[in-house]
């Protein structure tokens, strides 16, 4: 009989005897056990403290500052409350629409094509070839992630620079007679998606590989016996079996992409219409050419990201039926 650490009201009257943890905490609810009502605090307390200090508190500060006119002109001492002025400014700012548009394009295509799509393809491919080859291939895909980001971006810039400095242009396009150009500027969206995607794919690849390799051999072999081809195995066996990692990678990478901007900053610094929302917030609040900062407005922009991220979290949890996945195993309630 398994051990169940999760409490719920339905377990309160469960007559099934659960084992004790050998003198540790009694997890069974009961009036004689040590503060059973608050047991969860002992387990969750440290994690909750970290979340409170490093997430909840900064978020509260972000929202508080967003209601002020704090900027380089006021310093941290001479600011005043301005109500919703910064939030109204976001909705009336003529550049807001463009930043939303580029953010959606960047997040959607990087996520679908690379962080989840390519990651899944790589995981499936490398688990269906000899183990050593699969390992080597995956190791190769980790190189972009372990390369220092400044070096990585510098490589891309010289790959995509105009002739005679750019490798693509000088060694491929020019000899073939194509017109050469600064490729980052010519194809800015493709550039930021590729640069981020090549890093992002490796994360999902590792998670999916591990999940695929954990699928019971019996199930996989059964599908072969039943005559399933590779596409059917992917559709009917692999995808359903790795639903949880899929949900995790999709959620995690969506939130990461919405708030990430460092590769874009180093590659284009927002030029050619590539200033995603988070980079806009960074430029307004923390870094720009003249070093004049609008902390209040920047925090309102960051506040939008927090709200969007929370909304996405809720949507994903609903869409992937998170609550179904963490339901107690039926065997426990027999």
């Amino acid at each position, binding site marked *: 009989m398994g051990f169940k650490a999760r409490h719920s009201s339905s377990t309160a009257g469960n007559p099934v005897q659960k084992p004790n943890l050998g003198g540790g905490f009694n997890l069974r609810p009961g009036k004689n056990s040590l503060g059973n009502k608050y047991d969860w605090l002992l387990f969750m307390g440290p994690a909750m403290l970290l979340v409170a200090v490093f997430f909840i508190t900064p978020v509260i500060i972000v929202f508080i500052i967003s209601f002020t006119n704090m900027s380089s*002109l006021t310093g941290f001492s001479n600011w005043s409350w301005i109500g919703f002025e910064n939030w109204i400014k976001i909705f009336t700012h003529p550049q807001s629409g463009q930043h939303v548009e580029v953010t959606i394009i960047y997040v959607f295509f990087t996520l679908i094509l690379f962080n989840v799509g390519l990651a899944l393809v790589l995981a499936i491919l490398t688990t269906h070839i000899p183990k050593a080859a699969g390992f080597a291939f995956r190791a190769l895909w980790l190189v972009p992630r372990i390369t220092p980001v400044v070096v990585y971006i510098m490589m891309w810039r010289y790959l995509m620079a*105009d002739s005679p400095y750019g490798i693509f242009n000088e060694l491929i396009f020019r000899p073939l007679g194509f017109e050469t150009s600064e490729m980052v500027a010519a194809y800015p969206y493709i550039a930021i998606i590729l640069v981020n995607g090549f890093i992002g794919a490796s994360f999902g690849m590792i998670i999916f590989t591990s999940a695929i390799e954990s699928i019971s051999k019996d199930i996989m072999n059964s599908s072969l016996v039943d005559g399933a081809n590779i596409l059917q195995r992917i559709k009917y066996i692999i995808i359903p079996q790795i639903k949880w990692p899929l949900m995790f990678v999709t959620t995690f990478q969506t939130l990461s992409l919405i708030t990430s901007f460092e590769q874009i900053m180093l590659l284009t610094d927002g030029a050619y219409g590539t200033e995603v929302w988070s980079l806009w917030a960074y430029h307004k609040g923390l870094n720009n*050419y*003249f*070093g004049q900062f609008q902390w209040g407005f920047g925090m309102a922009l960051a506040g939008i990201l927090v709200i969007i991220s929370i909304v996405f979290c809720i949507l994903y949890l609903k869409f992937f039926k998170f609550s179904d996945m963490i339901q107690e195993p039926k065997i426990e309630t027999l």
Partner: protein
Amino acid sequence: MKRKSLIFLVLLLIVPLFLFAGGDQEKEAEGPKEVTITIWTKAGETELWRGLAAVEAAKELNKELESEGIVLTVEAVQETAGWGDFNKKFTMASEAGKGPDILCTGHENIAVYGSTGYIIPLADSVEEIKAMAPEFDDVIEGLWDMTSWRGQIWGIPQDTEARPMFFSKTKLNELGWSDAKIAALPDEIAKGNFTLDDMIETGKEAIAKGVVEPGYGYWSRPKSGGDFIQYYMAYGGQIYDAEQDKLVIVKDALLEWYKFQRRIVTEGVTPKNFLGTDWGIWHNTVSHNNALFFAGGVWHFAEWATQHVQDIGGMDYLFENFGYALQPTGIRGVAAQQMSHPLIYVVVAEDSSGNSNQDLAIRLLQKMTTKELNTNHAVGSGHLGILKSQAEYTPYKEDRLLSETLYMLDYAFFQPNHPYYPSYWSALWTNMEAVQNAALTPEEGVAAVLEVLEVEIGDALIIK
């Protein structure tokens, strides 16, 4: 008994602390008072005299301070970061009361740092600052304007520069221009007889005749920078209305400027998607005589000579191949201009620096503002001098580049000391880039600028 022992033990530990503390104070009173002044500058490899000048000046000042019982030490922190990061560091440090005593910064930051109280005014008028020291009286008159804000003087000029239009003499020769015609080009540009249109036409001709590669007729600065506003001014633009203390947009000038930025691409003298080109590529290309016209700064000569063409002749190679002129006008017959961007030393307030060294800092600045120290910086970095006496100072006069570009200060305009100028510039740059890359038409670009500035600046903008 136990309690008495504990009290005795505590006294045994505490009493010597008081004794030693008293001893230190007595020691301090006996010897000279040691004061450290910290100066922060942003400096490239050739610009180290921005901070070294303070170290050298301290030696002179210490002679005076000896009788006052003070020994001054200077700690110069020279950063190579971009202006944004450098300014951010100063802002955060000032808020924490850990800023430097002296900051070397762009003059346009006076309004921002003055508003927050990070820096202190040095005098209430130009006359007052000039009367404070003979060194300050020697500063070129026009430069004080750039240190003024709300009627007070907030800084001491450190350097200034010219932003010329460089041209390849050898490429013009190949194009059929005589030496005399090439030699007369700077004067023709200054008078407004050779315009931006002429530059485009000459670039097209050079490309057509194979003198330069397509797209190499004219190279502007490759990344964001106030330099581009020279072309707004070239078409009759106005940045600032001093009387109303407001920023200004002249719509027609803005439109003509944006049309020019688009034309250089459509006419083929500048590569498609040029903006954003890596600085390393830009320096390498122009310094190796691959472009016909290219806009830069006088200080670039020093950089190219020491970091790019040092193996093929250095400064001699540059003088042999390149000439320099003002930025051509966009309106024929109207005198040319160029933008200077003086750096200044400002004195940081007590709350921001955490020190009360302001008087000493001003005395140190006096000693730094000498023709000897400033010429070290000017000659080493290719920046123009700030003192009247430098024009006749032999080491300065003997520097060919500095002496031949000094006249450009007579045609200089400056960016305004207005707190909203960064937002103003950001809107102009973002949309200029979009127009040059054909993401917007010039007309759409102008409309976008006005829309953004209405939200960002509002009443602080005059539209003409």
